[in-house]
């Protein structure tokens, strides 16, 4: 048994390729961050992050090879995140602070004044 167990052995090709793809995407997103894309910058950055997350979830976490219920749980997480964002947005995005000038963000230096 120990004979076959010596050393680390070779990593599976799929894992190595995933790892290299992830590192490539880090380089890509870092480079694109310095390109003036205007408001599309955040969209591109999040799209690349989503691709990276997809690789990790699919090839490292093997979500689509496990039980179906695990996919339901993962999907529910994203679904409730969407609910959290949309319901919170109904409050915050409907506020009109700019018109009232009613900003009251703390600076952390209140005590020193």
């Amino acid at each position, binding site marked *: 048994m120990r004979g076959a167990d010596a*050393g680390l052995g070779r990593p599976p090709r799929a*894992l190595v390729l995933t790892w290299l793809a992830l590192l490539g995407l880090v380089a890509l*997103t870092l480079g694109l961050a310095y390109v003036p894309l205007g408001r599309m910058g955040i969209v591109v950055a999040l799209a690349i992050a989503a691709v990276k997350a997809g690789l990790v979830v699919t090839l490292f976490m093997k979500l689509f090879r496990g039980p179906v219920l695990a996919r339901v749980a*993962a999907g529910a997480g994203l679904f409730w995140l969407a609910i959290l964002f949309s319901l*919170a947005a109904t409050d915050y995005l409907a506020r009109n602070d700019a018109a009232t000038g009613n900003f009251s963000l703390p600076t952390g230096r209140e005590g020193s004044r």
Partner: protein
Amino acid sequence: MSEAPLDQVHLEPQYATARQQAETAALGMWVFLATEVLFFGGMLFAYTYLRATFPEGFAEAARETHVVIGTINTVVLLTSSFTMAWAVHAAEHDRRRATALLLAATALLGLLFLGLKGLEYYKEWQEGVVPGLNFHKDGPNAHVAAMFYYLYFMLTGVHGVHVTIGIGLVALMAVRAWRGGFSARYFTPVEVTGLYWHFVDLVWIFLYPLIYLAGRSGP
């Protein structure tokens, strides 16, 4: 701690098969991770609101984060996810020493991440961008910078706590693997710990562009 016999899986009475038992454990972790998405979700919404409301002050603050350390840490964490996935693969193929060594490597990469994060916090303390404790920024956008750094420390701090817990779990699995606690038929704890570790990596995959890459192409 009672380890499972090498080639026989201890079946709890509520399960019909070992496979059902293993899948239930994985499902439990996925459900927990779904709640973790919401745990980070509140802070991510705060981020979205702040960035949409004060785009200029936000970009100005985000541009001053330590992008070199942030990028190195991203590579470190992605690499640790790779060694973690490799460890699960090794466990699946009954390569016990390889499993233990790869788990140890994963934990060490996690420690490296925390070390670099600590260096970053130290630099930020010296720069005076720690709101409430040591914040020395002036100018029209100082209040936005303060909010940015509040969020920065909350997000990275809570993520750091997750990394710390992950290191503990992975190290524990490394010890159990080294002692022969797992086999090709029983390695569920390694697998479930792996799911948690990958999730911590997933959070960082989104934090990296949100924190370090925002405002880089601006004036």
